[in-house]
């Protein structure tokens, strides 16, 4: 198995080689080798349902699902955090009443998932999945625990920087996004082939939340702010229902 030094050389060689989105063909992320399309994407004008996004509402979600610290009988271990921000589209408009889903490891870097073999402790009081709907300003807020870094088997001594997985919808189908939010100043950034699959450093910055003391809750939780800009909608305002 390659060492981190081998991997870092591969990452180095591909720096700046892609655009603002991740390279689909990114060999340092070994699982991508047989799974990325080799043909260019075929550009098409969206039509019909592609001009719309599915609707979610109060019937789909309980408010409590946005608090990952109250899903079990006791308090989870780890550093309590608030993650808040806005979902806006590529024209700066808020994405309202839309679904945001997150999942993450616990404070020890272990997922509540049968295939996670990392021998760090599970926390019976932390499952690590949440959902909410954005408000009229596109705002979302989750109460959770700061996830731990965790090892994986991409190469020898491979570790993922701490992150929260995010799933987002826009106002049309084409804006669908699944991504990961990272924490500022993580020493693992340069070493991680998943983060580095976005080879443009300015674009990578967009995945890093900012510590925000105005979000920090006294005696309770540290605050992070992360705004998410989706791509542009293809529907004109006249078509809004």
């Amino acid at each position: 198995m390659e060492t981190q030094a081998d991997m870092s050389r591969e990452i180095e060689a591909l720096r700046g080689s892609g655009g603002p989105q991740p390279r689909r063909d990114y060999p340092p992320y070994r699982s991508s080798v047989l799974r990325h399309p080799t043909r260019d994407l075929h550009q098409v004008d969206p039509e019909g349902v592609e001009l719309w996004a599915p609707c979610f509402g109060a019937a789909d979600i309980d408010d409590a699902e946005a608090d990952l610290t109250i899903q079990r009988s006791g308090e989870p271990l780890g550093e309590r955090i608030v993650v808040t921000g806005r979902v806006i589209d590529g024209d700066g408009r808020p994405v309202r009443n839309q679904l945001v889903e997150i999942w993450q490891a616990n404070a020890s870097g272990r997922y509540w998932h049968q295939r996670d073999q990392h021998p760090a402790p599970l926390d019976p009081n932390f499952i690590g999945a949440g959902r909410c709907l954005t408000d009229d300003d596109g705002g979302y807020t989750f109460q959770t625990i700061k996830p731990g870094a965790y090892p994986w088997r991409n190469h020898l001594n491979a570790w993922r920087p701490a992150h929260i997985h995010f799933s987002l919808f826009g106002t049309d189908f084409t804006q669908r996004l699944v991504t990961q939010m990272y924490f500022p100043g993580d020493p693992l950034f340069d070493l991680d082939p998943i983060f580095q699959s976005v080879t443009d450093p300015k674009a990578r910055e967009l995945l890093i939340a900012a510590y925000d003391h105005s979000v920090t809750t006294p005696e309770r939780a540290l605050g992070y702010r992360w705004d998410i800009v989706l791509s542009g909608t293809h529907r004109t305002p006249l078509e809004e229902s």
Partner: protein
Amino acid sequence: MSFAPGQTVGPFFHLGLPFEGGNLLVPAGHPDAVRLHGRVLDGRGAAVPDALIEIWQADPSGAVPRATGSIRRDGFTFTGWGRAQTDGDGHYWFSTLVPGATTPGRRPFFAVTVFARGLTDRLFTRAYLPGDEPDALLDGLSGERRATLITTREERGLLFDIHLQGEGETVFLSYPRQAR
């Protein structure tokens, strides 16, 4: 404006994304239910057991659903959206209704999003009903490429395999306003 980059859904998305009934746009016992299903395959033709497929579609009359309730389905409302994970054999399935044409005379399709461990970003494609209506996308593709986007009709369903790479690689789509 700079758009947030995508990142892989990873191997642990089952924790956060699938939900009970996600693949049942209508109950499987619905008199008009069809099974839209297929396998997700990698560049060597091996099953991808950790992919997630989402579909988004018009109702049989061609109307775009605007109803909420996909996550907690009431069994009566057609929301047009569903989510299914692949099993150990790379197989996914939905119980749904056949979409109508949103514009009369056009070929109906399911809009499909593909996520998987190993995919650094989601992929978009379309699963068309078999037919002979003209279509701007299909008509511009070679026969071999076009075939990757057309479902195969079965007795009670529609088959749509997704080849991420290599021989018979599915045509994946981008849209004008996305960052490249």
